[in-house]
């Protein structure tokens, strides 16, 4: 049935391969967790676009908190999208309401991460798996019971488990029950939210194999969310790498793993222990933690931690440690800018008393103490710290960016105007995309720079 739907709605913009099932366009999901007063939402998913083809498994990887789970939940409408569209066989499901949404929900289901939390302990296994069928008034009650039993069999449990309770099962078995419930309505698309990360390593493989078998048997399309890269490499056809609400790179799994294009993918993959000890490149250590998604950096989301951030030509030769210091300084100024200082603290500051903010000079010493900072750099930096010390953070940042900023920080070639963001560059014949300025002709490629700088 969905086959027909897809073919009748061709003629959409962009790629309309007939086998595209889900088309996500510029999707944004913001949370407003700040209560009534805060107007800055958490940008969990901040404008992503990709396609999922019928029958494939798309992996979604990234550190925790990068928005991958939110993205998955938005795709099945557990979360409301703030902007953008999710076309499911041509229908924008973010627009569905009421009955249409209810009907559509049959098509897309989710396997949850924590098998302890995803099954209601007060219900029998039979009741749990049956509930979707009851909700959708599927055939007769006797048929439903029959279906539940065949589902139990399908996921490797036995029909007499119908009257048992979740307490009586191990984590792996509970996950099987969760999978059976997901399958009850014959969905086409399933979001797997780290389905094995809560399980013992020994049962992870069983569940993965089960998922693969079921995919073949029922022609399922998976979005596989994970942070375990080896599992992703095993099961996924394509992978999307997410960072701070953005997709940094997306493409066929093997290619992406063997020849990553995006600096973030490089960093992520370098964290996997290499089987080959003679492998050329060292592990890339990322400084700091991902920025707060309420205040993402301007320009490239990865710019605060990127090991190959583009630097202005005149400072290309500057010591790496000084660069680390400059980046640190920028972060601290940004931090100071948005910290709301209470009146009391302002008063204390005025009288030179100690506040909970270290003075900018201390910070400076901490960052650059013991480094041989060239004179011209030092001059700029002292201007910056002076401005910051006078609480002119905006000015300090502008000064810093004017001197040391690059496209990565959103500073355009002409130095002002709206912040520029990277674009997606096609980095291989397979259509792999990477979100990084490094792929533009005028910059050197990531791998080369990594070798240089390490």
């Amino acid at each position, binding site marked *: 049935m969905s086959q027909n739907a897809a073919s009748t709605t061709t003629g959409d913009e962009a790629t309309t391969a007939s086998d595209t099932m889900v088309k996500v366009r510029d999707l944004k999901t913001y949370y407003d967790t700040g209560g009534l007063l805060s107007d800055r939402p958490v940008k969990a998913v901040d404008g992503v676009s990709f396609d999922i083809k019928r029958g494939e498994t798309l992996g979604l990887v990234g550190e925790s908190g990068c928005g991958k789970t939110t993205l998955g*939940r938005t795709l*099945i409408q*557990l979360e409301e999208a703030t902007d953008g569209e999710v076309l499911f066989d041509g229908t924008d499901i973010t627009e569905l309401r*009421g*009955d249409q*949404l*209810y009907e559509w*929900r*049959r098509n*897309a*289901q*989710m396997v*949850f*991460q*924590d098998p302890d*939390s*995803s*099954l*209601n*302990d*007060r*219900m*029998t296994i039979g009741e749990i798996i049956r*509930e*979707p069928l009851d*909700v*959708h008034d599927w055939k007769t009650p*006797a048929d439903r*019971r*029959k279906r539940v*039993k*065949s589902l139990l*069999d399908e996921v*490797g*449990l*036995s*029909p*007499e*488990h*119908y*009257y*048992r*309770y979740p*307490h*009586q*099962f*191990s984590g792996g*078995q509970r996950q099987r029950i*969760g999978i059976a*419930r997901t399958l*009850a*309505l014959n969905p086409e698309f399933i979001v797997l939210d780290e389905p094995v990360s809560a399980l013992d390593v020994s049962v992870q493989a069983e569940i993965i194999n089960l998922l693969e078998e079921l995919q073949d048997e029922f022609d399922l399309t998976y979005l596989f969310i994970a942070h375990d890269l080896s599992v992703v490499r095993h099961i996924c056809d394509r992978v999307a790498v997410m960072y701070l609400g953005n997709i940094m790179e997306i493409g066929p799994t093997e290619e992406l793993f063997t020849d990553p294009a995006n600096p973030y993918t490089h960093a992520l993959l370098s964290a996997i222990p290499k089987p080959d000890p003679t492998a050329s490149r060292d592990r890339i250590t990322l400084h700091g933690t991902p920025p707060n998604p309420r205040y993402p950096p301007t320009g490239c989301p990865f710019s605060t931690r990127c090991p190959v951030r583009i630097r202005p030509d005149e400072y290309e030769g500057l010591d790496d440690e000084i660069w680390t210091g400059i980046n640190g300084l920028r972060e601290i100024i940004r931090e100071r800018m948005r910290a709301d200082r209470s009146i009391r603290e302002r008063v204390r500051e005025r009288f030179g008393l100690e506040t909970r903010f270290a003075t900018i000079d201390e910070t400076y010493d901490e960052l650059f103490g013991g480094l041989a900072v060239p004179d011209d750099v030092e001059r700029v930096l002292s201007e910056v710290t002076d401005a910051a010390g006078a609480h002119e953070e905006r000015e300090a940042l502008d000064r810093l960016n004017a001197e040391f900023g690059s496209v990565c920080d959103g500073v355009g070639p002409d130095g002002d105007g709206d912040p520029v963001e990277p674009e997606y560059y096609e980095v291989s014949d397979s259509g792999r995309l990477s979100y990084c300025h490094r792929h533009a002709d005028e910059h050197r490629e990531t791998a080369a720079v990594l070798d240089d700088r390490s």
Partner: protein
Amino acid sequence: MSTRQRDSTDGLEEPDDDKLLRDRVRENPRPAMVWLAGLAFLLLLEIGRVFAGVGQAFGIVGFTVELLAGIPTSVGDNVAGTLGSAAGFVATAITAVLMAFAVTVPVSASVPDAAVDILGLDLSRRGHRWAKRAELTFVVVAAAGLVAYTPVGGAFSALIGAITGGVDALASSLPSITSRELIPNAGHRLPEGGWEGTFLGLSPAAAWAIRTGLVFAYATTVLVWLWRGFDVYRTHYRLADWTPRDDTVRRFRNNYWGLFGFAIVFLFVVMALWAPAVSPVEAQHNIYEPNSHEFQYLDENGEVTSTTHVFANLDSRSDGQNTIGPMSYDDYNRWAPLGTTNRGQDMMTHLSYGARTSLVIGITAIGLGALIAVVLSLLSSYYKGITDIVTVMASDTIQAVPALLLIMLVSVVFQEANHPIAQPLDGGLLLALIFAFAYWPGMWRSIRGPSLQVSEQEWVDAAKSYGQTPLQTMRKHMAPYIAGYILIYGSLLIGGVIISTAALTFLGLGINPPTPEWGRLIDGGQSYVSTSSWHVATIPGIAIVLVVVAFNALGDAIRDAIDPEADVDESEAAATGGGA
């Protein structure tokens, strides 16, 4: 505990566990029949009281319905007073429709869909739901209108009257094993010794002891029989061989402090339910209308004379000078197992009817408060955001007013106005409603954490992901987890309500005489504690302490029983103990 996997390629042929309970009983009827026969026998023994209970239930329902039915008109009258009669009529109608609608929402799910299908509309699922509710509302309003504004109403109330009358007649004519007629204990001495008018000519004390003993034996048998029912169901008819409830029951059974609490609460409840049977004199004669009931006794001159209770009570007061202590007869041949009160009434009678009062108030207050708390906590934790904020503000506002002040204010206002609500139990019902209003914020607060927690569980998301309705999600996936908590807080608070009622009555604010109340007993006896009439305040005082402690123990035991962590701790302790 864990089970086999992939061991059942043959498991698909239908095993015979797909039958409904009815079929399973039909297949193996013996245990169920035996149990039912036992239950029927037990009910038959007390058939008179069963009907009396039914009659009382009718009365309560009737009163509630009347009260609710009065709301639209009183709203309408108020509006009519300020805006004119047309507006008043509209307000009456709107209130009535809204109330009818509120009634239909929870029940509409259990009405068959065919009710809407006959309309022949092509409706969406949501439209279908609303259509059904609208239809039911219409039916309710139409029925109410018929009763209120047409002659049908007269016939209807006549019918109700006939039924109630019939039930009452049955209640008084059918026998009960614990009835006063079967085992009378009110009689008088004979000049030549011995007793007249008592059961088998025994002394009133013995007759009363037999009857009271019988009451408790009977109640215990009923309890045992109910437990047997659970057991029979579990062993013969239940499909699951284990449910989480089994563990709860097992944990509760091993908790001796909780069992002690349960035992005391059981005694308290039995005393309240069988108050007419365990009281040595009839409350109607001794407390409510002592003027109009005569009885006979053997006076000092050795003659059988008759007098009214009001005079006898005057002579039997325990007020420091004069004392009828526990386990004694007064001068009028009346047996007083717990002595008399400072006003000469029988203490045991007072205590058992007072238990009734406390129980009714406690259950009404906590039941209503818990209902409000649960509904609001489900709504506010499911929808969060603005619903939550509004609930927080409402509960904070109520909690900002000191509960005692609130209770005193409201009860004075209603009692001065002589509002119909202030009449049942001489202010008891009013008190219960005020308690419910004052206590729900506390209960809501204490279950707010658990309900927020359960609303974060992935199974709630899962339910949403396959399109379960919010109402069903709350009922199936959230409410069962909150129920345990509300049971705990309810049983802890019920002690508080009982003690507050007593305290208010002690202060002269709560329940007016003649309705028996423990607080008034304590108040009446407090000045005689150091005299020979010490028992007047001491006995009800001890009773209150016992009951409150027992309810607390019960609440704690329930908490331990439903908390699976308790089990983990046990097994862990066992494991480490074994390892060390």
